[in-house]
């Protein structure tokens, strides 16, 4: 579809805003609806849009297989790692209040941000991976 100038221009315009919106959803998960899961899905959909317009090979140049494979597990590791960090500072697993980041309220707020980032990374990477692997018809 990349020969169609309307689709190309509109998607080029939209993709950065979709990605910015995904980060907004992540960052405002504590104030309004949203969070890591929704933000990750929205971020993945911007990559899907890019692939739909420019094709799989061009998409893989932007988001390489290696990066998504690594990010798949990095997100879960961030989540689990914050839990282990809580253990190390004398709390229970995932007891964010024990993190040395200020008082109880602030520490758990930042801990929740941390795990939301982990969720966002994993969800976005997995959705992108599934889409790339599913839509790989022309090549195999």
């Amino acid at each position, binding site marked *: 579809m990349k020969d169609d100038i309307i689709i190309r221009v509109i998607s080029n315009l939209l993709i950065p805003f979709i990605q910015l919106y995904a980060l907004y959803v992540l960052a405002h998960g*504590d104030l309004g609806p949203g969070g890591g899961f929704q933000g990750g899905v929205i971020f993945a959909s911007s990559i899907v849009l890019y692939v739909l317009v420019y094709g799989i090979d061009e998409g893989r140049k932007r988001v390489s297989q290696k990066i998504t494979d690594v990010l798949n597990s990095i997100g879960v590791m961030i989540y689990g790692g914050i839990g282990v960090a809580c253990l190390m500072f004398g709390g229970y697993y995932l007891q964010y209040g024990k993190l040395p980041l200020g008082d109880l309220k602030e520490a758990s707020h930042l801990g929740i941000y941390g795990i939301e980032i982990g969720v966002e990374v994993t969800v976005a990477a*997995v959705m992108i991976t599934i889409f790339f*692997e599913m839509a790989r018809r022309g090549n195999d």
Partner: protein
Amino acid sequence: MIIDFILLFFLVVSAIAAIRMKDLLSTVILLSAYSLIMAVVWTRLNAVDVAFTEASVGAGITTVLLIAALSRTRRWEGNGQREGFKSSKLFDSHSLLSFIAVLVTGAVLVYGTLDMPDYGDPDAPSHHHVAPRYIKGSLEESGVINMVTALLANYRGYDTLGETTVIFTAGTSVILLLRKKRAQ
């Protein structure tokens, strides 16, 4: 009030149409429409977090992934019946039997809902168990204004960790199953 009935009507129509459709691409689009209507219903019920998830996951990425899956299989549904079975008498009695079974199960379920508290009833048991504790304490204990986020990430952090692991497992399985096929 009237908009709830309109939404319910379109919900039922899109669900039945999705079942009846032989063109699987149309089915996927109808399911996407179903999710979108469902997102509006969640918003009407003031469950904006669920509505957001339904809109982005149900109506958004699921549709794309199902269409991608269709590109690997076929677009048209096969009739799915064994040969010579379609118009025989036996099949008709089978479908009649299953219709009765569905009807009875549905009646039992509707009967079960009669015991449930009314919508928005402040005396409902679910509003007197842990909910008051969360409403009072979640801001102090988690520092997060959105109570849903506080619940998901703090009080039920293990649940969310499990969900993230499920997503990770799904991604790993897709890599293992589909990438191997490509290398052969």
